[in-house]
């Protein structure tokens, strides 16, 4: 196995609608990542595309449509797709291209054009449900998360205020992130608790919005990384795990698939006590309660402990265990696969000391990013470390 370093990253603006086409967004993100590295197009050996449902863009085999924007013409190019997990799974795929020795430099691009789906991307979400068991009941996607949130709150007796704190933290963290869609320096817990109830217990400010956007990342073989940087950020370990399709046949209180994926990544990264050894984390936070759910899944704290840590300020940027310093999905936006920008690109920028206003104080050396996908099933985890 070859050691793999991240040498560059890029990200576009995230908004509900962007004028650029999917190809153009891929290009913008790739261009920024290439500028970061100083790399030329011909030095890139292979390209991985991560992009979520084709139904959003309205193009079947949409990976094929994005080849030109991702600098992949005439190159080996493959698209991977795990629903929401793609944000960290596409980098994992980029990682294995280099770690296996098949490529020396691999570009990973994640693109999303949710705005193309008219009248609302919700329509595409109707088709994630089982056609026989769920669709006849005319479900709305929010129901799924509301049910999981309710179960989680009920199991540990968690108050809505503590969950709302996560939305406040992340939306405030996003202030100063140039790509952020929902940064708000003045949001309070009361704002969240007073927002419109969509499907109890989920309220409007608990949810991250659909967005258009793209992100890019460049992986490099350790043997040649000195050509691009003196302070490489390495991939410590990766993990991914999937639970059963039959989500009504399992207990939603604890995401065991996240724990499995995390264990796989930590084992390879040589991390024995994640709560102590991980300096900061970017768990997937499409809803505020998910950050807590995933913190526990990533074994960063005990079951039921995440809301307490949040209440005590431990997960703030200047706390002992900063969580979502980028502002996460709640602050920056949720273009499904392009959330790689907040999850793995952010890990890289923080570890390389390039996160500007979002920089975590101290000297972070190890970070973990996680994404969550499919129908509450898929967990993808990546650990990055400095030096």
């Amino acid at each position, binding site marked *: 196995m070859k050691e793999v370093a991240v040498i560059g990253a890029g990200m576009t603006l995230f908004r509900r609608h962007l004028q650029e086409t999917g190809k153009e967004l891929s290009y913008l993100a790739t261009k920024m990542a290439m500028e970061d590295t100083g790399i030329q197009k011909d030095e890139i050996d292979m390209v991985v595309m991560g992009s979520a449902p084709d139904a959003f863009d309205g193009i079947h085999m949409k990976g094929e449509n994005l080849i030109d924007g991702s600098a992949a013409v005439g190159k080996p190019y493959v698209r991977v797709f795990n629903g929401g997990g793609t944000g960290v799974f596409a980098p994992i795929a980029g990682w294995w291209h280099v770690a296996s020795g098949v490529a020396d430099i691999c570009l990973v691009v994640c693109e999303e054009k949710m705005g193309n789906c008219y009248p609302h991307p919700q329509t595409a979400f109707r088709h994630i449900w089982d056609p026989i068991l769920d669709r006849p009941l005319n479900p709305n996607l929010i129901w799924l998360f509301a049910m999981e949130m309710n179960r989680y709150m009920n199991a540990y007796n968690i108050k809505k205020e503590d969950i709302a704190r996560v939305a406040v933290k992340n939306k405030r963290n996003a202030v100063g992130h140039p790509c952020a869609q929902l940064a708000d320096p003045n949001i309070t817990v009361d704002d969240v608790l007073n927002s419109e109830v969509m499907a109890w217990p989920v309220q409007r400010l608990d949810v991250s919005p659909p967005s258009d956007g793209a992100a890019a990342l460049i992986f490099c073989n350790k043997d040649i990384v000195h050509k691009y940087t003196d302070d490489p950020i390495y991939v410590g370990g990766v993990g991914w795990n999937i639970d059963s399709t039959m989500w009504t046949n399992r207990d*939603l209180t604890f995401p065991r698939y996240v724990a499995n994926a995390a264990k796989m990544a930590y084992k390879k990264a040589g991390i024995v006590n994640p709560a102590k050894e991980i300096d900061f984390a970017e768990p997937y936070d499409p809803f505020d309660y998910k950050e807590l759910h995933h913190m526990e899944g990533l074994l960063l704290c005990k079951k039921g402990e995440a809301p307490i840590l949040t209440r005590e300020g431990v997960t703030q940027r200047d706390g002992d265990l900063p969580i979502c310093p980028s502002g996460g999905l709640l602050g920056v936006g949720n273009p499904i696969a392009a959330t790689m920008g907040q999850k793995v690109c952010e890990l890289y920028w923080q570890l390389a000391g390039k996160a*500007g206003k979002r920089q975590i104080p101290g000297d972070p050396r190890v970070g973990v990013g996680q994404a969550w996908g499919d129908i509450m099933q898929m967990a993808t985890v990546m650990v990055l470390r400095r030096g």
Partner: protein
Amino acid sequence: MADEKKDWPPYAPGTYVRESDIREKKITYTWWEPEVQYSWSLGPAMSKFLQGLKAGKIIGIHCKRCKRVIVPPRMFCEYCYGPTDEWIELPDTGIIETFSISYLDADARRIEVPILVGVVDLDGTPPHHGFMHYFGEMSKDEIKIGMKVKAVWKPENEREGSITDIKYFKPL
């Protein structure tokens, strides 16, 4: 080299457009409605399940090796990866595993009277095991996790072999 720059991303490329810009055709776009139709074959397990619902019964299947009842039924057990064994008729009662009180319908439109929906942990199955359905004959203040519920079926002549042959689950 890139190391000198400390503020990434340095800019956010992309052109912000509003929903209204699109509606009012201030930006150029192209429009397509695909013809997308599927007819998924059900196979033995789902067919049996739906036939059972038409007859007013909830049918599950038993896995001998794992010693568990599975509903909705399937021809293989995902835990031991072996084929499943006998069909079992299950009682149409259970407890509420989780629920939500929804003010949104399937197209994300706001509704006045909320829909009560959730997962029923059916009696006779392992813990946390059931399917999703509506709840009725209870208010949003009464609904609780752990509440005992029973299925309310459509009359026989209205049942068509669908999950909606059960109207909702009511408190027992």
